[in-house]
């Protein structure tokens, strides 16, 4: 068994060495593809985290009409808390709001009566539900009809659009790059098969098993994918470090969290290896059909 493994590995190494130029090219393309995908993935996760943090601070404020009873407030709160996209909803009595305002602006507060109505503070957990929740609030009878609902709609929409764009760019650019890398691995495997045509013929003549014939080329595809994945992970780490340094120089921006090295290395290598194997197998299926 060990003897067979050594033979197959030896064949894979010979094959890799024979098409070194093409192998390097496909490793680089796989690396770039995984780098772009990984980078966009990290950016997307970062923005999503940021968005979550933003929704926590950019809450929705809803002002109730004068004369709203405690029962109505309680019923409204119950309904709001049951609404999809709402993380939390709390009542801010007009006395509390006025007290806070008075503390912060004593000069203005001393000459006027409390203008605040009772209000609700709603914290969202799904950015995309903002408009729907706002519309639902406006439709309620106990909510002030004019400026009764306040939330940073523009900012939230902007963030939502950015995430959508990122998803789209990731799918398009990453998809195209993935396709290019796949075609390259596919081509390298076919080239390897072509350059090994006499070996394959000899193997067929002497009754070599299919694993002996094809496994070296599958290993070749896997090696390309693994190296591509590793290279992509290294590039991602370096880029992240540079970005972190830039972010650190701005005091107003909070520092980035530590680079998630373990999952990034693990998943890029797994993705590269799987992709390499799949492309090599596809090339070999074609080759096998032609041979048969």
């Amino acid at each position, binding site marked *: 068994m060990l*003897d067979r493994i050594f033979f197959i590995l030896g*064949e894979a190494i*010979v094959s890799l060495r024979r098409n070194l130029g093409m192998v390097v090219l496909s490793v680089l393309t796989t690396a770039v593809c995984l780098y772009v995908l990984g980078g966009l993935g990290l950016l997307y996760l970062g923005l999503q985290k940021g968005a979550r943090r933003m929704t926590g601070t950019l809450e929705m404020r809803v002002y109730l009409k004068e004369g709203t009873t405690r029962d109505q407030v309680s019923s409204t709160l119950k309904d709001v808390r049951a609404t999809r996209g709402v993380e939390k909803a709390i009542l801010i009595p007009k006395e509390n709001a006025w007290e806070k305002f008075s503390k912060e602006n004593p000069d203005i507060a001393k000459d006027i009566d409390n203008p605040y109505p009772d209000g609700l503070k709603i914290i969202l957990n799904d950015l995309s539900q903002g408009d729907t929740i706002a519309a639902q609030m406006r439709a309620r009878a106990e909510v002030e009809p004019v400026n009764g609902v306040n939330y940073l709609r523009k900012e939230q929409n902007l963030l939502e659009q950015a995430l959508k764009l990122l998803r789209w760019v990731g799918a398009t650019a990453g998809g195209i790059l993935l396709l290019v890398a796949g075609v390259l691995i596919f081509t390298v495997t076919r080239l390897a098969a072509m350059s*090994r045509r006499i070996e394959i013929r*000899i193997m067929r*003549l002497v*009754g070599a098993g299919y694993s002996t014939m094809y496994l070296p080329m599958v290993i070749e595809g896997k090696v390309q994918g693994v190296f591509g994945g590793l290279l992509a992970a290294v590039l991602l780490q370096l880029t992240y470090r540079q970005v972190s340094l830039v972010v650190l120089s701005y005091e107003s921006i909070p520092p980035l969290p530590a680079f998630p090295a373990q999952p990034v290395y693990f998943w890029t290598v797994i993705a590269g290896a799987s992709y390499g194997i799949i492309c090599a197998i596809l090339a070999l299926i074609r080759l096998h059909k032609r041979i048969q």
Partner: protein
Amino acid sequence: MEVEKGQPHIEFRAVEVSYRSHKDAIHSLSLQIQKGEFVFLVGTTGAGKSTLLKLLSREVNPTKGAVVIEGKEINRQLALFIPKLRRKMGIVPQDYALLPKKTVEENIAYASRAAGKTRRQTRRRTPFILMGVHLLHKAKSFPDELSGGERQRVAIGRSLVNDPPLILADEPTGNLDPDHSMEIMQLLLDLNDRGSTVIVATHDMLVVDQVPARIIRLEEGRIVSDSGPMERPKSEPLETEVIPLIAVVDGNEDAPSEPDENVDLQIEESESGGDDA
């Protein structure tokens, strides 16, 4: 060589083969070959000689009928079993199919390793095979340093890595002059003397006339004549310089002694290959 009676080694049962470009490449052909026979398939180009060999090695499947080897209908077997089937036969192609960047012994060793033999088995057996095909002195030569006859002997040697009971040779003398052709025939006769069934597709009538063997003549995919099974005495060496293979295989006293297993024959694992063949 004594021909065994009883169940035929090979049987074609009303076999028909049609290619897209060549309808009726084989036309309702039935044939039995006994174990230990030496058979020539003769005929002009396109007569169906090579197709018969390809049917035996499962490179081609019959459109109709059955191909039976040792009682098994091979055309019904799954493609997964083709390698196992081929390990029971030695296939000698006309174009040698040698790896140009490997020496003679590396070519044999590579085939042996590819066929599933261990490094140790390969190291033990390769010198014997080389002695059998009289190329031990050329073990370190590369194919382009060999004559056509020598290259064909390497191809025959390679076909022996599985010690097969059936040898299929497709035009083995097609590229050789008469002297070298007879050398190759002598090697094949020696293999037949060991008990292997040998089937040779050829149109070289000069060779056919000098070898006492069963001759099946094909024309347009049909058998037009068959001399029938023939028992021939153990082969006397034909007029060649070649030592009979049986001498080394059967451990004959005159045969070269078994090489020491520890002698380093420097048979390397797959290094370089056929990239610019």
